[in-house]
């Protein structure tokens, strides 16, 4: 039997020109989340509790694309999704179309533990959240100034930005969408770029 181990991620497809300060900010958040997970593991919390604890922290911080700081839909709103899975018995829970639950990953866990299903979405998921007493907030809570600006960029470029953390036009994302005329399913090819 080996010891404990933990890994966290904040998304792939990083802009090569991401400013150094943003990189340091991301590393600080990742380190803080690792520390939270490590101290939970040292206190003998089971793995399923630790993954929920750490993802909640990542959802609450607006830096990455989840929870507060989520990417915006074409209407400027937030629709979140999450899933969780416990290895030993392969129990799992998932939610989609979440607009008012503060921590979607905890709702996914409630689906796993308190419902006969493994996946709830949109209004059904939100009704279930209220019944289970999950913490609810207005959709505005999830929307940040920065993402409002990024959505504007994406609309001007008529594309779906693969990663809203791209601050400059032209290097990729919005700018690339304007340059590349290649279409797929009626959308700029950048729509299918990595997240």
């Amino acid at each position, binding site marked *: *039997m*080996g*010891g*404990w*181990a*933990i*890994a*966290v*991620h*904040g*998304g*792939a*497809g*990083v802009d090569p020109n991401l400013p150094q300060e943003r990189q340091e900010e*991301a*590393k600080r958040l990742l380190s803080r*989340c*690792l520390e939270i*997970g490590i101290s939970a593991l040292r206190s003998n*919390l*089971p*793995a399923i509790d*630790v*993954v929920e604890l750490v*993802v909640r922290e990542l*959802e609450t911080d607006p830096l*990455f*694309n*989840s*929870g507060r700081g989520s*990417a*915006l*839909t*074409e*209407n400027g709103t937030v*629709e*979140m*999704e*999450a*899933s*969780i*899975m*416990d*290895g030993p018995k392969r129990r799992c829970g*998932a939610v*989609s*179309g979440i607009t008012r639950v503060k921590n979607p*990953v905890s709702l*996914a866990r409630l689906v796993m533990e308190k419902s006969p299903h493994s996946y709830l979405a*949109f209004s059904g998921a939100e009704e279930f959240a209220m019944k289970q007493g999950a913490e609810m907030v207005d959709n505005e809570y*999830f929307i940040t100034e920065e993402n409002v600006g990024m*959505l504007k960029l*994406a609309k001007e470029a008529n*594309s779906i930005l*693969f*990663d*809203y953390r791209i601050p400059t036009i032209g290097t990729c994302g919005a700018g690339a969408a304007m340059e590349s005329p290649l279409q797929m399913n009626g959308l700029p090819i950048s729509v*299918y*770029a*990595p997240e």
Partner: protein
Amino acid sequence: TVGCVVVDKEGRCAAATSTGGLMNKMMGRIGDSPLIGSGTYACNLCGVSCTGEGEAIIRSTLAREVAAVMEYKGLNLHEAVDYVIKHRLDEGKAGLIAVSSTGEVACGFNTTGMFRGCATEDGFMEVGVW
């Protein structure tokens, strides 16, 4: 997208993933993160969380694939992660983090970078972007 994978002292694995999806996405769009077996998977062998181009991760059932090649091809965690990133994504771009029930931790990606951090009980700790 954010994710976490953990194996505890008892060798139990777990995985969780959460996301806001894509900027300017259509209402009602569902990506890979909530799909068990694509964006998230955990069993008695490993725990996996993926991020990147949702459509590619869904088509390749990427998270389950790591467990499958460990189970059926007998690969260890690092070999399994390298294999699925190299051979299962077609032209898609994605990244993943994974732990094994024996206490290993691994990550792989074919994008320019991936925000990630990992640590093990014997003191190893790494935070990276590129």
